[in-house]
């Protein structure tokens, strides 16, 4: 039997490596390994026990102190003693409705061992491609219908073809791994858990466009991904998959990593190129497109990690098989990072065409605390929200766009009835305003002004006409901003106004936050009938806002109250009301 500990960043953060060390210490002689992320963040740390190649048992939420039991069970061969740690049938269903292509090896193989990737069928696609013409490769990708998974959904074959047909040598193939959307971690998981899949996908792309140099632009906040990718590159070079004369075919191509310094806008391809060139990360005007004039003014092709992660599979299994999945306009699968007020949060890969409802309820298990679901935010700060009554919308580029949201790179934040939608829009605007590079007027000042207006609305200082002002400014910023960051920044505002205009109106006209989330709009009062005059709240109030005599009803001075909520938590009689 073999013990495998899930050591993605999420697992490690939950304590997986400590579990690994504890098992290692106690279990000499037991075969112990690691794997990447299986996607079940809500169950980390996860320990899998394999009997030969079969998963015999999956243990979840494992603690260091469980190591003894695990080692004992494995040594004795009696896994029944681990039933308390084993995953429930219900939680197992998290994987049932998923179809894994990009994530096919994630959480299964050891990402630090190239042989495990090869044993899983890795680098076979590269071998196959090297006997094809570059045009045939592009044709196969065209058949598959693969579109850019970074958010825009542009047909991959078209970009490859444009770069291939573009004059100029050398050409570059670049992978955009500057995953910056808050709450998104698809790319990180792929690099940490299956780096060779990325390398192979990129090599196929490089062969197709005729590039001899590949760069992975990965954000410096992903140290583990960088370490694992560095190791994978080394291993691939040793095995002859990277470097000169690959697999004896004469194809030469090497790869390097560029760590980005953490600017969100560098996920925009032209800003990424500027940053690669050592300049300030600011977008360039398009046209010219990178395919004509990109990195070092040479033809360059840029794809996202997830896009490349599908390529080897497509070559191996044929474009038609990929295209058989999904809808008329959107083919294959899409990875989502499911977060927010969801029971089973994590990384999911589903075929295009699945409804949002199925993802949230069947895979995600529904809303935490069985509260009412309000909406889901797709596409992070560039995206929009889809309200609960539109949850039958299917995962499809066009269908999602019709709701005002976007497919995006895969962030899926679930909100329940305690989320203020104005506050949510403000949260995302705060993010984009801070991440604006400062180059163009509409984004630099426009997002700042949008944020200021949202801020005053949530503080109860909204004015009549603010909604219309927001709409007009959003429209101006969308049309006038230079790059995708600015052009999409207003989306969270527009879509929340579209579906939750009443919430905006309540804030502006009634100075009231309907869900009671905007602190400035809350009033704390003590209900005289319920207060026993125990003085506890008065003693503990950090602002000294509560006064009253012992055994007599107390009062809160609204001018002094800082609305910290301490009194509500402390009061044993439920005497404090918040409105």
């Amino acid at each position: 039997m073999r013990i495998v500990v899930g050591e993605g960043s999420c697992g490690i953060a939950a304590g997986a490596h400590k579990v690994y060390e504890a098992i290692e210490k106690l279990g000499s002689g037991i075969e112990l390994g690691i794997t990447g992320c299986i996607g079940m963040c809500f169950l980390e740390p996860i320990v899998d026990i394999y009997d030969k190649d079969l998963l015999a048992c999956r243990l979840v939420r494992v603690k260091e102190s469980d190591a003894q039991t695990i080692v004992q069970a494995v040594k004795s061969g009696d896994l029944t003693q681990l039933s308390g740690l084993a995953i429930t049938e219900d939680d197992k269903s998290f994987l049932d409705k998923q179809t894994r292509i990009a994530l096919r090896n994630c959480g299964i193989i050891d990402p630090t061992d190239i042989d495990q990737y090869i044993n899983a069928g890795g680098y076979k696609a590269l071998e196959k491609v090297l006997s094809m013409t570059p045009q045939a490769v592009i044709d196969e990708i065209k058949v598959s219908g693969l579109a850019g998974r970074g958010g825009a959904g542009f047909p991959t074959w078209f970009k490859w073809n444009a770069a291939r047909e573009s004059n100029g040598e050398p050409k570059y193939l670049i992978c955009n791994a500057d995953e910056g959307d808050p709450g998104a971690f698809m790319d990180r998981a792929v690099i940490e858990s299956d780096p060779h899949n990325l390398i192979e996908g990129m090599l196929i792309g490089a062969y197709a466009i005729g590039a001899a140099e590949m760069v992975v632009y990965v954000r410096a906040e992903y140290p583990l991904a960088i370490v694992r990718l560095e190791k994978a590159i080394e291993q691939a070079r040793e095995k002859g998959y990277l470097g000169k004369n690959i697999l004896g075919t004469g194809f030469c191509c090497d790869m390097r990593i560029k760590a980005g310094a953490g600017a969100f806008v560098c996920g925009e391809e032209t800003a990424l190129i500027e940053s690669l060139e050592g300049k300030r990360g600011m977008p360039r005007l398009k046209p010219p497109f990178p395919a004509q004039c990109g990195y070092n003014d040479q033809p360059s092709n840029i794809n996202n990690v997830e896009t490349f992660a599908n390529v080897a599979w497509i070559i191996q299994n044929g474009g038609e098989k990929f295209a058989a999945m999904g809808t008329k306009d959107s083919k294959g699968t899409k990875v989502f990072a499911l977060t927010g007020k969801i029971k089973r949060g994590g990384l999911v890969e589903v075929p295009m065409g699945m409804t949002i409802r199925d993802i949230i309820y069947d895979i995600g298990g529904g809303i935490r605390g069985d509260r009412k679901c309000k909406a889901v935010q797709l596409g992070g700060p560039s995206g929009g929200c889809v309200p609960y009554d539109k949850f039958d919308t299917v995962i499809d580029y066009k269908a999602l766009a019709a709701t005002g949201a976007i497919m995006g790179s895969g962030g899926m934040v679930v909100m329940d009835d305690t989320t203020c939608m104005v506050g949510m829009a403000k949260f995302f605007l705060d993010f984009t305003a801070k991440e604006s590079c400062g180059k163009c007027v509409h984004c630099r000042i426009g997002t700042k002004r949008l944020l200021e207006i949202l801020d005053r609305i949530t503080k109860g200082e909204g004015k009549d006409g603010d909604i219309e002002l927001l709409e007009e400014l959003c429209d101006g910023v969308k049309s006038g901003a230079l790059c995708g960051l600015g052009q999409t920044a207003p989306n969270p505002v527009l879509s929340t106004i579209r579906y939750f205009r009443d919430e905006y109106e309540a804030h502006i006209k009634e100075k009231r936050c309907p869900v009671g989330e905007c602190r400035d709009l809350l009033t704390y009062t003590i209900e005289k009938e319920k207060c026993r005059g125990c003085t506890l709240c008065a003693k503990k109030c950090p602002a000294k806002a509560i006064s009253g005599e012992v055994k007599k009803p107390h009062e809160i001075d609204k001018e002094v109250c800082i609305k910290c909520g301490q009194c509500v938590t402390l009061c044993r009689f439920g005497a404090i009301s918040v409105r």
Partner: protein
Amino acid sequence: MEKITVTINGKVCSGERGDTILNIAAANGIIIPTLCHHYNVKHYGACGICVVEMENSPKLLRACSTVASDGAVYFTESQRVIKVRKIALELLMSDHEGDCRGPCSLNCPAGTDCQGYVKAIAQGDNRHAVEIIKEKIPLPASIGRVCPHPCETACRRAHVEEPISIAFLKYYAADKVLASDDPVIPKPESVSGKTVGVIGGGPGGLTAAYFLSLAGHSVTAYDAMPKMGGMLRYGIPEYRLPKSVLDKEIAEIVSAGVKMENNIKIGTDITLSQLREKHDAVVVAIGAWNNMGLRCKGEDLTGVMGGIEFLRKVALGQPSGIGKSVAIVGGGNTAMDACRTAVRAGAENVYVIYRRTRDEMPAEDIEIDEAIEEGVTFKFLTNPAEIIGENGKVSAVKLQVMELGEPDASGRRSPVPVEGKFETLQVDSVICAIGQKVNVSGFEELELNSRGIISADEHTFATSVPGVFAVGDATNRGASIAIEAIGEANKAAMVIDGYLAGMDTPYRKPYVSERNTEDIDFSRFEKCARTKMPVRPAEERKHDFKEVNLGFSEDAAIAEAKRCLECGCHDYKDCKLIKYANMYDLDADRFAGEKHSCFVEKKLEVIERNQGKCILCNLCVRECKEVAGKGILGLVDRGFKTVIRPEFRDSSVISGCADCLACVDACPTGALKFIGNKK
């Protein structure tokens, strides 16, 4: 080069393949506005002003960088384009920290470039100063003497110690140039063939006549009085404005092409309609020459007269009949002119009767001080209750004693009678200087407002009769100061010029950027006292009508002019930002919010960079890098906090500056300023 054809705003334009929409449009006479593009550097695309719409394209294109496609159809001024441009400009202005024009100019009803001429005086160039003044005021020496100078009221130097003596500087420069052999007398550049009749030869009428004449029209000014000048001649006493000065300035207006006809009274000598028929346009600038009555018993007695009536008589050399003791009622500048003139006319006891206290007096402080010096007695908190007569002639005035009550709408405490408390003053005459009325006889066909004053449109100055315009004291709000009439006449001249060309060009107040005075730190300025105007001693001057003021010496004038803080932007006339802001009719306040860091960088030795006026077009950075090959400047920080600093905040790079000024030349706003060569 291969030629392509595109359609821009419906016009078929040809250009070279590979050229941008912006360049092809420009070559075909269509100007697309842009702030961040400059021909000698690579396109950048930051400002978003140059956006244009392409037929069948959902996205707007940046004309500066987008290569035109053969056969494409572009629109450079479509509604969508204008909306996006307007929002960009509104956003830029909401984040702009600077004064386009100084508070002095903004507060001048004529919009005179005070800062400009004060600077010229500081540099010793009086003639240039007068050129600047004459862009707005054709009578600088006269106005410099009599103007109550709203410019000085607004002057920010007051926050350091005292305002600049702007009006007297104008008087100084104008006198110098009048006395020189090189006067400033502009001539019309073209001849329109149109004629204009101006009724009224006061400051308003003369200004309208002057500017309409310079615009190429044949202008005749008509006046009922024997000489031109209006209230400047017949209302302002000689000791404040010597008529020899006024005569010279009027002569210059004649030299500028204005024909003048005096002793013509409308309704008597010629009717308004006859004059209208005679000219292509008529300007009515008749002023307000009637006195408001006292409305108390005895006001019909001989010896009761109006302030301006009294002043006019003295100006005309007629006997005034005021006697030895005279009471002047009122607290404004006319009351001061009247009391000081009475002193000079030989009255022994001159009283000013004012129902409030000195603090509430609308007259200028200096006038009150000089009146007191000349022996005038002020009876504050009194009001005429009755004028007592003997044989139909004034013998005394009975005064009701007043006290100050609650503040009224104007913020001044209103006077209330103290019941039963009176005093009596033995006087020979009572001069009433409590306000003026318009005498509209002869102008009955014009529509009047509820106060019996001629109605004129605020933006077009048009009256109810087509082709007849009206300005000054005779219109709308009634009597005011000369510079108000001059300001209106100046604007009206532009409107009438347009009217004569068949266009409708109403006057719109230009939009400008203004700083909040509260945000300015005045402590960094060294204190330097305001130069006092030397005057003749009271004992000497009270016996004659010679000018009280002696005028600034050259040194005094230059020292005074150098006190100017130069609040207004040096680049106002060339600034593309403000030009576009006015073109697109901004609602600039709707996005008001926090502003970016607004420091002034002086480390650049020959150049001063004002970050508050920077719009981050990055042209200075790019010029320095691409044209000068230096790379001294760079963008630092991100997002809203982005500013331009020495590259990488490394001040040592500055020493590489070659003073080529490529950055200054390219800056579309006034953010960069050349401040002198390296020592």
